[in-house]
């Protein structure tokens, strides 16, 4: 009998064990990342989450790894700024410790499609496009005009981001930006689109202009909370640069003027842009965008951001005082030929040390407290900011475009507005007119915006040929046309292999 009872208990045990697995036993959800479903669910109870995916696009502008690799040179826009400044010959590679970015200064990466230096900008910029398309699709598509203001502002930012990414791509992957008929880049206007063939450069620029123009309208009335967000002024600045690239000078002048005349930004003062003799360094350094009225667009890096501030940032590569490659022998400085253009009384000469590293221009907050010693900053928690546009660029672009349009007086006014903060006597400008005046404005832009990632765009806009100065370790004295194949990234091998509609380089 005991056996029999026991059997029954055991049998019951079998039943229990078979039904022990709850219906949702096999359902598990992530916690360190979130699924789309979890995000949607959270958005229903937390209004901050609905904005979070738009901020997620912005985050990719500076996040490590947004270029799809684990490389230390993968931190978004400012990685590109460093590399483009080198490709455009304005920033000389003065030391190669740890071999960082040598494939750029030695011009080997730009000939080798399976080098990741090509992959990162492509992946990064098309990622921005894809994420923007997700927002645009969600808002009703390319032609939608949402009813609510906040929805219009969201759509406007997404279009502006998409336009910016195509603007960037059209410069760095296209050898000759005047060859408008050439098929150069796949265009994606929806996140649903797959494997697009190359469109012509004309179509790419048309999209950039329509996106930015739409954004300008949609962002009417948008008041941003952080400088990373694209507002109407930044969009107009981008439009001015785009028209500049097309050498549509009237439009360039028009849009640059809109920004200059907005009155929202002031040109950085002499104290702010350079460590002048006798200054203690508490002012300046380009490290805090919120304290610089001249910065129109940028990211305020905070120590609380997870892993966002470190060696793997513009500062970690460029700032002599930070825990950086610049401090351990991977140095970059101004091309000596470019430096020779500074007038004797230019306070910006104080931005450079004896080997032309920009040690008086960029320094992390607190460098002065350590006596501006190299390598004296913290290794982590570097809260130095990055900026992507400042108003000085718009003054100079306005001057350049106005001069091209024969509007010399307006050009001189804008150029002098800057130069009067940089040199004692800007009267030499009065002797310049037309082309020469435009050239001077562009040159001043290279001098003013050194190491700020704009020189490459200026080179292409001006259709220039640049010559590497004597202080380069490689190809010193050699000249490169703005159309030189070696100054433009290759379409990455992955695109050639896996997009059946793209099979050749530009």
């Amino acid at each position, binding site marked *: 009998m005991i056996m029999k009872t*026991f059997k029954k208990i055991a049998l019951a*045990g*079998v*039943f229990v*064990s*078979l039904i022990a697995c709850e219906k949702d*036993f*096999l359902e*598990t959800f*992530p*916690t*360190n*990342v*979130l*699924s*789309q479903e979890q*995000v949607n669910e959270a958005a229903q109870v*937390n209004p901050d989450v609905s*904005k*979070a995916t738009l*901020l997620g696009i912005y*985050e990719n502008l500076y*996040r490590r790894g947004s270029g*799809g690799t684990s490389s230390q040179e993968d931190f978004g826009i400012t990685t590109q700024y460093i590399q483009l400044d080198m490709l455009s010959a304005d920033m000389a590679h003065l030391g*190669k410790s740890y071999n960082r970015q*040598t494939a750029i200064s030695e011009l*080997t990466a730009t*000939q*080798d*499609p*399976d080098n990741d230096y090509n*992959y990162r900008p492509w992946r990064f910029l098309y990622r921005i*496009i*894809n994420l923007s398309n997700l927002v645009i699709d969600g808002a009703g598509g390319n032609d939608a005009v949402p009813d609510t203001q906040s929805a219009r502002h969201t759509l406007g930012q997404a279009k502006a981001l998409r336009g910016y990414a195509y603007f960037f791509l059209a410069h760095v992957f296209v050898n000759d930006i005047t060859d408008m008929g050439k098929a150069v880049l*796949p265009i*994606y206007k929806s996140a649903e689109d*797959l*494997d697009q063939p190359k469109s012509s450069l004309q179509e790419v620029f048309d999209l950039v202009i329509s996106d930015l123009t739409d954004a300008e309208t949609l962002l009417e009335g948008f008041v941003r909370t952080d400088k990373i967000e694209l507002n109407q002024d930044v969009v107009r600045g981008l439009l001015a640069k785009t028209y500049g690239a097309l050498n549509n000078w009237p439009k360039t002048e028009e849009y640059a003027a809109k920004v200059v005349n907005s009155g929202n930004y002031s040109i950085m003062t002499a104290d702010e842009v350079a460590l002048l003799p006798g200054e203690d360094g508490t002012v300046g350094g380009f490290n805090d965008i919120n304290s610089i009225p001249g910065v129109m667009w940028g990211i305020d890096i905070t*120590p*609380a*951001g*997870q892993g966002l501030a470190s060696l793997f940032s513009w500062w970690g590569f460029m700032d002599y005082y930070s825990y950086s490659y610049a*401090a*351990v*022998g991977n140095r970059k400085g101004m091309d000596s030929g470019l430096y020779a253009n500074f007038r004797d009384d230019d306070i910006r000469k104080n931005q450079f040390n004896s080997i032309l590293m920009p040690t008086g221009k960029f320094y992390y907050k607190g460098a002065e407290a350590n006596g501006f010693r190299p*390598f004296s900053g913290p*290794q*982590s*928690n570097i809260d130095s900011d990055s900026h992507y546009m400042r108003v000085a660029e718009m003054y100079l672009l306005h001057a350049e475009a106005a001069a091209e349009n024969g509007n010399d007086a307006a050009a001189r006014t804008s150029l002098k507005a800057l130069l009067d903060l940089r040199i004692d006597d800007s009267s030499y400008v009065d002797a310049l007119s037309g082309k020469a005046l435009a050239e001077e404005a562009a040159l001043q832009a290279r001098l003013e915006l050194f190491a700020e990632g704009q020189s490459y765009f200026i080179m292409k806009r001006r259709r220039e040929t640049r010559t590497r100065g004597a202080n380069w*370790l490689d190809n010193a004295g050699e000249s490169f046309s703005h159309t030189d194949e070696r100054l433009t990234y290759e379409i990455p*091998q*992955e*695109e*050639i*292999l*896996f*997009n*059946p509609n*793209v099979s*050749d380089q530009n």
Partner: protein
Amino acid sequence: MKLNLTQLLTSFMMLCFVFSFAQEKTVSGKVTDQNGAPLPGVSVLVVGTTTGTQSDFDGLYSISVAQGATLRFSYIGQKTQDVVVGSSNTIDVQLSEDAQALEEVIVTGFGNVSKTSFAGSAKVVAGENISNKSFTNVSQALAGEAAGVAVFNTSGQPGSTSTVRIRGFGSVNGSQAPLYIVDDAPFGGSLNDINPNDIKSVTVLKDASATSLYGARGANGVIVITTKRGRDAGNSINVSVKTGTNFQGVGRYETIKSPEEYIGINWQATRQRGLIENDGDNAAAIAYANANLFEGAGNADVSDISPVYNMWNVSGSGAQGVSELIDPATGTVRPGVTRRYNPELWEDFAFQNSNRTEANLTISNFSDNSSLYTSVGFIDDIGYASNTDYKRLNARVAATNSFGDFVSMNTSLNYTQSETNNNGTGSSSSSQFWWIDNLPTIYPLFTRDAAGQKIEDPIYGGFLFDYGLEDGRGFGFATNGVADSQINISNSKANSVNFNNDTKITLADGLTFENNFAYQYFMNDFTSLNEPFYSPAKGDGGRINRSRGETKNYSIRTGLRYNKSFNDMNLSAFLSHVASAYEYNYLEAERSKLVTPFGTDIANGVINNPSDGYTDNERTESYIANVTTDFKNKYFLNATFNRDASSRFKNNKWGDFYSVGAAWVLTQEDFMSGVDFVDFLKVKASYGVLGNSGGVGFYPGYNLYSVNNLNDNISLAFATKGNPDLTWESSNQFNVGVEFELGGFLEGSIEAYSKSTTDMFFDRRVGPSVGYALIKVNDGELLNAGLEFDLDFSVVKNEKFTFNIAVNGESFRNELLAMPIDPATGEQQKLDQDGSFARTVGRSLYDWYMPVYAGVNAATGAAQWERNFDDKNSNGVFDDGDATITSLTSYLNDNPSANVAQELTEVYAEATDKFIDKTAIPDLRGAIRLNAQFGDFSLSTLLNYQLGGWAYDSAYANLMDNDYNGTNNFHVDIRDRWKAPGDVTNIPRQDARYQIQQNATSTRFLTKADYLALNNIRIGYSVPKSFASKIGLKKADVFVTGDNLWLMSERQGFNPSTSITGGTSIYTYNPLSTIVLGVNLNL
């Protein structure tokens, strides 16, 4: 489905009750072998009926039988015995050995079967083969033990676990790792939790019919670990103590050790560059070399040797000083030049001969209804690299217990505490190994003042380490890997508890209810401290990071097992349900600005840094049904059906799998009885389809967003594209084999298999312009087909002397049969690149794809590579209109009619990537074991070998670079470089980086991966029993073992056995060499 299964079970049980009602009288007893050890799985049959049962794990059986009937006890490898049932209700039987058969028992599928009856592919490794080696866990010790099992001991860090691969590479992007089963339960803890001393045996299951018994996740093979129980050792107490030394026994790369030779090579390189820059003018070149050997204003593109590192007594570091240092006629340091100081040989400080101590105490005993095994073990294993060690304390209790003849429990509880220090072993500039191999020998470990004297360290005592900060050391500027490894902390403390309980309840004759509950808890507490004064974190005032990872893993198996014997036939079947849950929780905190360099708690810092924490979960569920039969001990058949589910898949969680197997023992047939030479012969075959869910992450079905802080706002950045339809990968495995024993001197097996993986996990790449890089799909097909052999020769076998040679080996082919479909074209993708490997249909996963090195231009000394181009105008030279080909196969896919021509280039960026018809997969690899016994002395050695295969020696490439002066040390092969026009050599000129990318990836550094390694050698002496008993011992052994003592490969320092592709890294901690003296006492 669940309901149906329940119904099925119910009816199955009802059927059993019918049998159990026909009872007459219950006879029970125990079956043992000739040594008195319990025999599980013995067939007990009532002669003349179909009634029968099998003995259980402890050899116990019980059967209903009428008095006067005959019980027949039969077991493979034992002589069959008949017993007439008398009045007693207890019949204990001791079987005797049948010399004709193999007696080895294979632990498989939650039960034991004899090797003879086993139709699958398995290799049993005796516990002593594992514990004889000086390793802390079973994975390292498996090297060479079984054909088809490749073990890569990736690191010398004490306490590290090895990568194990069984039968090739089963998947492109899915997991290739085997499943570990410990005491019948899937094991999700750390292998270090199992003391090799507690292991009874390890069985490697390789084919589908064997691995399917464990349900999901067995597609890549199963490693079954069985731990010791009280009955295994009998009533005994065992003390073993081993002590010995760890050292760097397998040679490192031969590098330039003399600072004078190093500086000479640099001078010659600078002169070479001077010749190029001065159109071959030798005098100008010498002047150039003298001016540029050391770094000065304006020559950063030639030299990185700051004058502070000019360690010679010459007048300076300019042209004059260098002319005093170097004789331009020879390019070497002039005789008589003296040094200001002698730079340290850094490895003298980083490396140490260190100790390994291991002690184990075991007590075991058993009685009729219970057995108990308790053990405590201790290991202190100190690495040869400074500040690397592993300590472990573990205790284990294992008991078997039974109540009456129908309930038995088998329970074990294991606690392990361990501590690891692994400072300076990462893949960064703080790697000690990068420093030792690559640092130019002109650089001192300790900072020198102007007089060449060391400077006292005011903080830690001793002398100030040189961080190369003051004037920019050309190598590792601002770091010092050896110093960092001394002053920083990287420490893990782990605590784990493993519990396993197995309950068997006999419900009726032959019918058993089984339940197994296994739980593994693992908590790792990691401390990383960067001290405040010298380390990379000195700018932060030092930094302390603490993280805790907690793993909880359990599995519950419930099932029924049914055994029945008929006259000539045995039948056994089981049905199981297995549910398992894995949870990993991570929590991290960090602070900087430390109060003291020694406090390892968070409170020691004052500035908060971002913290982090998350949980990963995985659940699996399986139903397993199996039927096994044998007929006349000649024919064996089994079939298994699995239904498996994994939480990893979103929409398609469930997969159905199956396997069948059959074996035929020919030597049991009459027609073989006349063949005396063949003692045993069995042929077997199996086929099955198994599932794999590993390697795709925990949540591959979802679109995933990372969570971040953007100026204190929530930022959700889209991170991963998910595939909700992703489901099980299928492994279709076919196995045939033959096992034999010939002429009393050769025992072995030969097996052939074919594994094709379908619905394969493939990270299908997309054109990145769509916004993401890849999507995980079930697509493509991969074939692994191979042959394995295991041969054991008894060369000499007599009372005094025995000598065995055992050889095993495997050879396999790996081939992609299909690539994933590109949805845009509906056709298979043509080519996929993964680093220097490329994948295409018809080639293996590991086919090299890289530029071809074309040797040295004898006139100029420059390195050359092959460059292909599309010669559109067919004039044989690359000129206008011709297209550059950077990737040959890719180009031909897009331009099938290309007119491919070839020339040589000295510009690496122009070289063409292409298939070179070389693979990383070897032709043959395996092991040779020699065992000799002479009286009380024994000697055994295990040699691992590999033939064929090509590996990329990147560590060597790094030592053959052409860079600025002072940036890296050289391999001694640099002495054979091109030096003057006409030199015929394969090593290009040194020219202080005039030719860039000289050592970039190409066939130049692709190296034959053949090797022969002395994995283990053991010399033992057993104290004669007569003497041992006098001092109160049952047994006493003394032995010396040596592990990893010798390796022969293409070049010293190149160790292809440390990674799957054989490749090397500049950060590798070469596996430890260990010599240990041990004593083993049995009381």
